[in-house]
């Protein structure tokens, strides 16, 4: 492919900066150039802070407040969009080029029925009159893969799942019959399974209508599967671009190589230390049930498993499968409404008061979002030291304080945070660093079991790998066991020894990671496995298995 067809979108040396209060403007995108041909699928890949989202928003002229194009052009069909006055740009938005935003749950107006939100595009651009628009909106919803579109159109966003909301947003993007769709991490907040379905449908829709697609993502695996060309961004600049196969086989830039190494589906890499020799299990769950009052069915319905000392047991499932509730039951943050839970040979479902506190010392928690789980007003040292203070580790007085400070410093070193982090606040740290703080806080009491609830799903792929590596290292050093909750089987392969597959509150399959992932017994497990993004080539092999 030496000769490019005439580009539909051509970004030329675009520089975008943000005004910062009391400081010089920060350049988010520098000298970025890229082309998208009519009907082509191009993926814009990069980590958070790489400027890929800013670039995507700059294309449609929707930079957040304070953002400004400093120089460069955004040529769409020969017209420089960035120089277009607002009314003319507005006439093109939604009509010629559309945006599929990042978070489906917050990107729809919560107080408007979804059908009306789709119809709005048609009305704004005079594509339908008031009588036709609602019916056209239902057709569009149907096209975007919304089941029972007539009923769904009359519902509000909160009555729809994340995947359905994203389909509504795709219907909105498709409504004007655009020639280019910019999809800004359209599925990063969805489950692996839903992610795959929604991306497949978006790809299929754009292919059929001949719409070009610029797919912005941090996941090289899913980008490689769908895009003919890749554009890799890092630190605000485009570091490399070219046909997908070429980039995957001969990555020129070190950052591309790093992304490639971190993509779980592309380079299956095992972090987990060898499985310890099974002894008496540390934790045994038998027939765990948890029913929320008023809910039609129990969230957890007879779940049983064992976790050995120093072992990682992964629970995998879609959202709503009950995996997070199970995590809360094991950490005794919620009380099961039925079943047994034995920890170190002792029944713990009915513990309260002092024995429960004693259990808390031995069972700790790492939560999903390192952005929300750390108190923004506390310093890192205070956050990590809090469990020590709660259990009065090191005794009273100044001697105790010194002992605790030493333990905190040692723990920060173990999670590979620089010593000066101790006095900083969470807001000054990156997502990966924050999750290290959360891990340090969980491990500082030297617990026997840490419940990790989706600890890497809020992080970039490259950072994900680092955190998984760290968890595995700490397990080898400290002999701690993990209950690892995730929706991503690729992550399971990297970190876990054994895995249980949850569906609608029931375990459908349990076993060794190698057994379950290579010879899945349950059809649902096979479906989950197919959702793991992989390189484009083994697609044939995948077809052979199904």
């Amino acid at each position, binding site marked *: 492919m030496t000769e490019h067809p005439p580009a539909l979108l051509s970004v030329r040396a675009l520089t975008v900066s943000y005004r910062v209060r009391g400081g010089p403007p920060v350049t988010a995108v520098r000298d970025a150039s890229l082309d998208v041909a009519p009907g082509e699928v191009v993926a814009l890949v990069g980590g958070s802070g790489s400027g890929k989202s800013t670039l995507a928003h700059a294309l449609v002229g929707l930079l957040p407040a304070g953002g400004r194009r400093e120089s460069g052009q955004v040529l769409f069909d020969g017209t420089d969009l960035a120089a277009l006055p607002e009314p003319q740009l507005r006439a093109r938005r939604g009509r010629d080029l559309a945006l599929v935003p990042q978070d489906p749950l917050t990107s729809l107006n919560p*107080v408007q029925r979804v059908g009306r939100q789709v119809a709005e595009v048609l009305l704004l651009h005079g594509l339908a009159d008031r009588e036709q628009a609602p019916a056209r909106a239902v057709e569009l919803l149907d096209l975007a893969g919304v089941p029972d579109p007539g009923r769904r159109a009359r519902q*509000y966003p909160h009555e729809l799942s994340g995947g359905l909301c994203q389909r509504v947003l795709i219907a909105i993007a498709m409504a004007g019959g655009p020639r280019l769709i910019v999809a800004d991490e359209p599925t990063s907040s969805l489950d692996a399974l839903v992610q795959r379905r929604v991306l497949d449908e978006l790809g299929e829709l754009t292919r059929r209508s001949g719409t070009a697609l610029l797919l912005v993502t941090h996941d090289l695996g899913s980008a490689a599967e769908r895009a003919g060309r890749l554009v890799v961004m890092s630190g605000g600049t485009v570091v490399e671009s070219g046909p997908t196969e070429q980039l995957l086989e001969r990555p020129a830039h070190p950052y591309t190589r790093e992304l490639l190494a971190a993509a779980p589906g592309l380079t299956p890499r095992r972090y987990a230390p060898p499985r310890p020799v099974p002894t008496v299990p540390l934790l045994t769950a038998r027939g765990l049930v948890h029913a*929320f009052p008023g809910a039609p069915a129990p969230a957890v319905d007879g779940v049983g498993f064992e976790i050995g000392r120093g072992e990682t047991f992964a629970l995998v499932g879609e959202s709503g499968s009950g995996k997070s509730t199970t995590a809360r039951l094991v950490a005794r943050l919620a*009380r099961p409404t039925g079943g047994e839970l034995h920890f170190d040979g002792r029944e713990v479902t009915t513990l309260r008061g002092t024995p429960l506190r004693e259990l808390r010392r031995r069972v700790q928690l790492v939560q999903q979002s390192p952005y929300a789980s750390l108190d923004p007003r506390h310093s890192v040292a205070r956050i990590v030291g809090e469990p020590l203070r709660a259990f009065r580790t090191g005794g009273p007085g100044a001697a105790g304080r010194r002992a605790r400070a030493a333990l905190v410093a040692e723990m920060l070193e173990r999670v590979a945070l620089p010593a000066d982090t101790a006095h900083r606040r969470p807001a000054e740290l990156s997502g990966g660093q924050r999750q290290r703080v959360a891990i340090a806080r969980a491990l500082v009491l030297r617990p026997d079991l840490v419940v990790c609830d989706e600890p890497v799903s809020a992080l970039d792929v490259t950072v994900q790998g680092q955190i998984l590596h760290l968890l595995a290292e700490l397990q080898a050093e400290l002999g701690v066991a993990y209950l690892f909750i995730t929706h991503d089987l690729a992550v399971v392969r990297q970190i876990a020894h054994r895995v249980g597959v949850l569906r609608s509150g029931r375990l459908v399959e349990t076993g060794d990671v190698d057994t379950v992932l290579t010879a899945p017994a349950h059809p649902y497990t096979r479906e989950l496995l197919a959702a793991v993004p992989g390189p484009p080539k083994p697609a044939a092999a995948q077809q052979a298995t199904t």
Partner: protein
Amino acid sequence: MTRYLLRRLAHTAFVLWAAFTASFVLLFLLPGDPVATMVLGGGGSAALDGAQVAALRHAYGFDRPVPAQYLDRLLHALHGDFGSSVQSGERVGALIADALPQTAQLTGAALLLALLGGGALALAGAWTRSRRLARLLDAAPALGVSAPTFWTGLMLIQFVSFRLGLFPSVGAAGPAALVLPALTLALPAGAVLARVFTGSLRAALGEPYVTTARAKGATRARVYFGHALRNAAGAPLALLGLLVGELLAGSVVTETVFSRGGLGRVTASAVATQDIPVVQGLVVLGAAVFALANLAVDLAQPLVDPRLLVRTAAPRSVTA
């Protein structure tokens, strides 16, 4: 929904009962001898002889045991009968009914002004692209809240009425006489509304769904009025219920400053003369207005935000 409504109505009834009981305890039991208080409060000489006091006491039923007094008053109150004024001898119900329309006019007009003014101020503050103007508009509510009602009232009388001669300063004759008092009363309420509404409007405009609307090609006006406005309306609406009580309380000062008749004046004089039955009637009326206003607000909230109709049973987890 029906069950919710019944529960809320029961709740309102409880609030009214509590207001009645609290006022009974505070007004009739605590002063020691209510008759002496009333007589002294009336400014009359304390030269009533024992027989007269005993006659009064009998007339008001104070010679009966407390539970009997309480039940008797409660039963009458349930029929809207709070006894008669000590000062004028008029029935409390009739007294209040006479004054109510004027105060309803005043507070209604003030509420409307506060809504329009506060809403316009908030919209203007969020709409303007000039940072200086935005900052100015943001500071305005603080000014409105900190100016005391009696002062703004006097200033308005001084400048608008005496100097410019635009609107009458006293009395209750016609809509023109309503302008200045309503403005005075509306100022602090409108300021609070503007403050809260500006905040919620700015927050709504920063939400991702606004970006979606803009990406559809929506105009600025459509983004503001079609998407952000309704999302931002919840907080000021919740405030509205509280402001109704505020306005009712504010009418005492405003009606005095502008020499208007109304509940505020009745309240002021009943308190000054310690006219206990009238005060109790006013307390219960105030509680009723406040409780009903907030009930109306709570019922209106789901119309603004359909998410509030969702049963909140499931996501609540049982923590040990």
